[in-house]
């Protein structure tokens, strides 16, 4: 009993110190909201969060897409996928539900991508939705065999987001610009291009991360059944 109370002391202390610091924060500090909103017209999009993500602080987002790729590369380096998740018989209720649900999910994620320029939305939101759809799809047993047959395509869709992002970022430098400095008037289109590629990569990466292992790559023996 005493030991348990003592165990909570460090956490309580941490909470106390953090609260003290947080409550000490000024009520109306010089935030970046004004600067962000003032430059919004030049940013090529009407949604300020998208402007920050893909324009003002696009470098952060590029690195974040790199982290996504790194995660799947790392997970694939650890272990092959277990057959049990690949060879499960399709659950009939799930697969029939999915046949009506998946087109809707696909459409909605595309909508989220498009609307991100004007309202809350964007590549990450759409990608998360589509990633969830992919997981459901594989769990429901749909398209599984066709997917494993197109491994090269699967792999390509994992890195296309980062490749397009870096490509655009460096491409705009030819002509005297800085890294990721979109030329006037083209910002909106370039952002949409980057976001589309990113949506693909994000969704496939999230789906692949769910499975926690790599599919049989060339030269490897097929995965053994789980004990």
């Amino acid at each position, binding site marked *: 009993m005493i030991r348990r109370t003592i165990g909570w002391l460090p956490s309580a202390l941490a909470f106390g*110190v953090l609260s003290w610091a947080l409550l000490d924060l000024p009520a109306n500090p010089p*935030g970046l909201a004004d*600067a962000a909103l003032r430059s919004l017209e030049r940013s090529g999009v009407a949604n300020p969060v998208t402007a920050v993500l893909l324009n003002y*602080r696009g*470098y952060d987002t590029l690195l974040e897409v790199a982290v996504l790729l790194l995660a799947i*590369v*790392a997970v694939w380096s650890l272990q092959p996928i277990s057959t049990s998740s690949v060879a499960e018989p399709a659950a009939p209720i799930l697969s029939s539900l999915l046949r009506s649900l998946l087109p809707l999910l696909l459409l909605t994620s595309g909508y989220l991508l498009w609307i991100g320029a004007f309202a809350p939305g964007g590549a990450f939101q759409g990608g998360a939705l589509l990633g969830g759809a992919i997981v459901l799809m594989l769990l429901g047993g749909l398209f599984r065999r066709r997917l494993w047959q197109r491994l090269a395509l699967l792999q390509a869709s994992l890195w296309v987001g*980062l490749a397009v992002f870096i490509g655009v970022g460096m491409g705009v430098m030819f002509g005297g610009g*800085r890294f990721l400095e979109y030329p006037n008037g083209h910002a909106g289109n370039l952002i949409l291009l980057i976001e589309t590629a990113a949506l693909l990569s994000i969704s496939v990466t999230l789906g692949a991360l769910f499975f926690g292992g790599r599919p049989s*790559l060339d030269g490897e023996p097929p995965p053994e059944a789980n004990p």
Partner: protein
Amino acid sequence: MSARWIMVLLPMLPLVAAIGAFAFPRAARSIGSATSLALVPLAGILASMVWRGGELAQFVGGWAAPLGIQLRADGVAVLLLLMVSVVGMLISIYARGYFGPSRASAAGSEARHFWPLWLFLLASLNVLFLSRDAFNLYVALELNGLSAVALVALAGGRAALGSALRYLFVSLTGSLLYLLGVALLYGGYGTVDLVLLAERTTSEPHSWVALALMTGGLMMKSALFPAHFWLPPAHSSAPAPVSAALSALVVKAGFYVLLRLWFEVFGGVVSFEAAQLMGFLGAAAVLWGSLQALIQERLKLLVAYSTVAQLGYLFLLFPLAIGSSQQGMLWTGGLMFLLSHAAAKAAMFLAAGSIQRAAGHDRIRDLDGITHALPVSAFTIGLAGISLVGLPPSAGFIGKWLLLGSSLEQDQWWWVVVILGGSLLAAAYMIRLLSHAFTRTRDTKALHPISWGMEWSAFALALLSFGLGFAASAPARLLENVVLGGSGP
């Protein structure tokens, strides 16, 4: 090739190469080696630009801070970039041999995964040393941490996976502590740009706590006592090139961010006492690490604890620089020490890896006669040891000498005791190690072949740590205009 391009290519080239190595695994080795080779001239050109023209800056996307992110290359950053590229290149050469085709079976899989992860690690370091934005540094630190963890886990097996998991938790906790500090900074001062923050931060509760949080988080990432516990197990079970990269490069990243924070952002906030505390933790690291190294049975663990000890010296920079007027000498000393340690430690891990590969084990007691079988590797360890102990004319000596000078100049004589004591202990464990290696036994045990590249890349690193002492004036010149602290550049 303009500075603008180089500052972009340094992080982006390895990222693109990582994509290539992932997409085309058969070419992974070539892509990886070629890229790490290409980074060296890029870093060198940038260094010469900074040498001639002073600090270089670029606002990514054309947006000035505080709205945008800025990249900056000053003397410190450029030296560290050179360190990453040169040490990285030599580790890559070693890795070619280590993961090469001469190794049978499962290593084919190890090799194909090593190169993309390694390139991600190099990219993350280049991003980190060029960035002056606190949140950007967070993403770089995460990229760095995740790739390092994946590399540690590459060897497979219970020990490697367990230590990788522990490293991952430490790394994530450290990142989140750091991130909360960033939140406090943004909440208090409305920006995450380090240069602007340096002007705006004042001594208030939220900045104290931010400093404490960020320092705690970064200490975990750079394995400063007492947050060093993850380092030795991770080192001992990771493949040799990964251990070398961890000790030489990865832990330096966290330390670098700490330097920027303490002396630029929180310059007006840090107190003499807080700096002394850091110094004492450094002294504890030196003592604890050296004593542990003395009693280790395995070579890799000995070198790992030696890293814990050597990192302690770096933390002496904090108490010494806070009140110093002779900043130039101190920074030169500190950075010389950092660079020489990177080269020497990488050399030792690579040579240890060669020895372990050849002999099939790394028990120090049973290393008799290794000098005859692998003379280059044994000599590498000796040469690197000279720099680690701090004997002249190595760069390690120059670093320690300048640190000693600064301690005496500021009447902080207790650090002299630490530095000298640590050097004695280092000499002790090096002598113990070498006494087992340089024995007269001539019985040739069955040894596996080691490739030429593996032994000589390690030797090159040891030579670098040794010879850097002769070229100490060059880094000193790069650093003379760096005044970390005060109003900042």
